[in-house]
């Protein structure tokens, strides 16, 4: 065995909401077969697109979530399609799906039926709000789920609307939690041979991304609120995002014993460059009690720091911070990430060939480094129906004639 999940097969019926689950299991070595309707998975219509040309084989969103998977087409709305699916279920260890609650049952492919076909099957269902309950049938787009999950309310400027991360986080929270839950069910199966049904609620998954929002209410009767580019400290707020010549940096200043050695040195550096106001010269952060310092003090400090940072680049400030120990990091864009020496030294970036678009695409690589069973990027995302022959003909022994007939009937 050279992957953690070698010889494990997963049938992945999910759309964009759940595709990350299979991706993670695939990264760990499982054989993931993504099962799409002949019209293609809806995730293929999500941008961005390769060279900005919208096309179902050019979605970068699809590329990232389906590396390390094979792909077949199958129309579960047809009787023949369902029979074929049942055949595949007998070969599988997992089925992952993200249809609306109850749809698998309506198709005659609910857990009870699949369990009879394959008692050791683990079936994982990902839904916006869980399988039942007063809001189970609510529609949940990413912005809606991140709002109902609690992260949006605390993100953004206090005087403006709550803000969303513009890459659909709720899909990724749900998919990664589904991978965790599926592995827990798999462990039970490993001991007992018994499969089971796993339910993942996207809203519940999102509530795990909200720090102490829940506890501020239940412990202190208060709601955590948006703090924008500041952080609340005692009764005052301190700026943490600062402009620089080519973007922004994040800088945390701490008082007392926890103060970073570089904080006082930063003031000295400002002074050497003639950008330290008189009152700040020689300031000693270890004597600062941030819990009692006034808002005026923090505002004056922020202005002085911003006047200095804006004369430097992200790279200059970060390099200095590393040398002198300062809680400062660049606010990276994608270009910075590709140049990041840490990521390069860990060989994080991996190229996969996409011969059909005559391109080699650079991807984020292994999500962890494993000593015994390294995570590998083995294949690019499948084209629509790319592995139909491999699965239907070579494995299930369906003749090419029969496959043509199934194709004619819109089954595959």
């Amino acid at each position, binding site marked *: 065995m050279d992957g*953690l*999940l070698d010889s494990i097969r997963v049938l992945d019926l999910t759309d964009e909401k759940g595709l990350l689950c299979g991706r993670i299991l695939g990264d760990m070595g499982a054989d993931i077969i993504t099962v799409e309707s002949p019209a293609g998975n809806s995730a293929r219509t999500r*941008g961005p697109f390769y*060279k900005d040309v919208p096309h179902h084989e050019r979605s*970068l969103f699809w590329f*990232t*979530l389906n590396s390390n998977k094979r792909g077949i087409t199958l129309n579960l709305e047809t009787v023949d399609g369902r029979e074929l699916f049942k055949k595949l279920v007998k070969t599988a260890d997992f089925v992952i799906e993200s249809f609306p609650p109850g749809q698998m049952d309506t198709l005659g492919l609910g857990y009870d039926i699949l369990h009879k076909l394959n008692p050791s099957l683990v079936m994982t269902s990902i839904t916006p709000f*869980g399988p039942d309950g007063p809001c189970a049938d*609510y*529609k*949940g*787009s990413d*912005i809606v789920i991140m*709002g*109902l999950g609690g992260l*949006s309310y*605390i993100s953004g*400027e206090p005087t403006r*609307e709550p*803000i969303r991360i513009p890459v659909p986080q709720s899909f*990724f*929270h749900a998919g990664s939690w*589904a991978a965790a839950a599926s592995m*827990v*069910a798999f*462990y039970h199966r*490993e001991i007992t041979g018994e499969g*089971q049904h*796993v339910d993942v609620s996207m809203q*519940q998954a999102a509530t*795990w*991304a*909200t*720090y*102490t929002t829940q*506890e501020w*209410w239940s412990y202190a009767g208060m709601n955590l609120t*948006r703090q*924008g*580019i500041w952080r609340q400290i005692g009764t005052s707020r301190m700026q943490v995002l600062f402009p620089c010549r080519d973007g922004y940096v994040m800088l*945390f200043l701490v008082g007392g014993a926890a103060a*970073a050695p570089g904080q006082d040195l930063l003031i000295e550096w400002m002074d050497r460059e003639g950008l330290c106001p008189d009152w700040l010269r020689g300031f000693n952060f270890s004597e600062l009690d941030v819990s009692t310092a006034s808002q005026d003090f923090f505002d004056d400090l922020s202005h002085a720091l911003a006047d200095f940072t804006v004369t430097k680049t992200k790279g200059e400030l970060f390099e200095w911070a590393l040398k002198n120990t300062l809680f400062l*990091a*660049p*606010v*990276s*864009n*994608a270009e*910075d990430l590709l140049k990041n020496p*840490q*990521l390069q*030294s*860990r060989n*994080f970036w991996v190229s996969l060939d996409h011969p059909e678009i005559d391109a080699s*695409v650079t991807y*984020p690589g292994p*999500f962890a480094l*494993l000593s*015994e*069973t390294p995570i590998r990027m083995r294949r690019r995302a499948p084209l629509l129906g790319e592995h139909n022959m491999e699965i239907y003909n070579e494995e299930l022994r369906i003749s090419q004639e029969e496959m043509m007939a199934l194709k004619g009937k819109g089954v595959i």
Partner: protein
Amino acid sequence: MSENFPLQEVKIVELTRVIVGPCVGRILGDCGATVIHVETSKKPDILRVAFPYKDGKAGINRAGYFNKYNADKYGMTLNLGNPKGIDVMHRLIEWADVFIESNAPGVVAKHGLDYGGVKDINPDIIMLSTCQMGQEGPLAKFKGYGVQAAAMAGFHEVTGYPDSGPVGPFGSYTDMVSPQWLIAVVVAALIYRRRTGKGQYIDHSQLETGIHFLAPSVLDYTVNGRCTERIGNRENSAAPHGAYQCKGNDCWCTISVFSNDEWLAFCGVLGNPSWTEDTRFTTFQERKRHEDELDRLVENWTRERTAEEVMSLMQRAGVSAGVVATGEDLHNDPQLQHQGHFKMISHTEIGEVPFDNPPFKLSKTPCEVKMSAPCLGEHNEHICHHILDMSDEEFIELIESGALE
């Protein structure tokens, strides 16, 4: 234990702090694993001395932040600088299937608890190290918090209003995206070990997992050379799409309209006012072109209603909408209540408080929070007697030596 928890035979010892490491142990504990959280009273976890405290009263056992990520664990204090303390740690390593640590790189090695050292004690152990940048590399020793890692991973650059600088999601967001993957990989490694007898070492960088949560936007750069810009709450394939102010103090409801059917349903909820038939809004392309004006008109309507009202009117018509939930709203959310998301559990010092359940349910084997987070050193005696089979004399000697500080 009468119930059949999926990981009930799994034994975990952790030398973890702050969020990611503790959260991994917490969820594995919810799934039935026996988890021993080792800490020291000499330098308490910063989450133990962080707001909010129960009833606003500061105290090492009163912090909601620590309690959230350390439920379903036995708590032990050990002084690893004390020879007897390190000896107890070795015995826990010997006992465990999994060792989780989340310290700065090099810290556990100082105590001989790097993978090499741990493997000498327990050859087939699974060890997970999680830190901000990964164990090796030019930035491995980077000093900072998860907020800095989140900024470095790229979340802040892309999150904010189009007319101002980066804002970012609240807090140390890389801490919010990492534990899930690590739970998956640790349990997979346990299964692999059952099959092959081999343990292994897992080196995890929170920065890298953060980047996975932005992967489509990163590919837009590696393929198209484009860095994602801040677009507020907008979405290329939807309009309206945003968080709209509602009646009340800082109350908001999100609404997203993707398809034409959803647009017609949305207009129906508003009572088909004449502006919805204006050519500036009748097609998706036109709505995108006049999105500022569209948002203003939508907000004129939402401002007159509560967020709950907007959500239920929209959802009844088949339009995706939802309250932008505060902490209080989460506790009162009828769907979360239906799912038993919060469970009241009695904590030794602060009494009954709610704990979040894991975001998943297994049909045959329960996974739920069962035991409150430990007070500092709460289970020292239990662990020494019942897990390490020490005599009373041995335990008393340990206390007197200062090993349990």
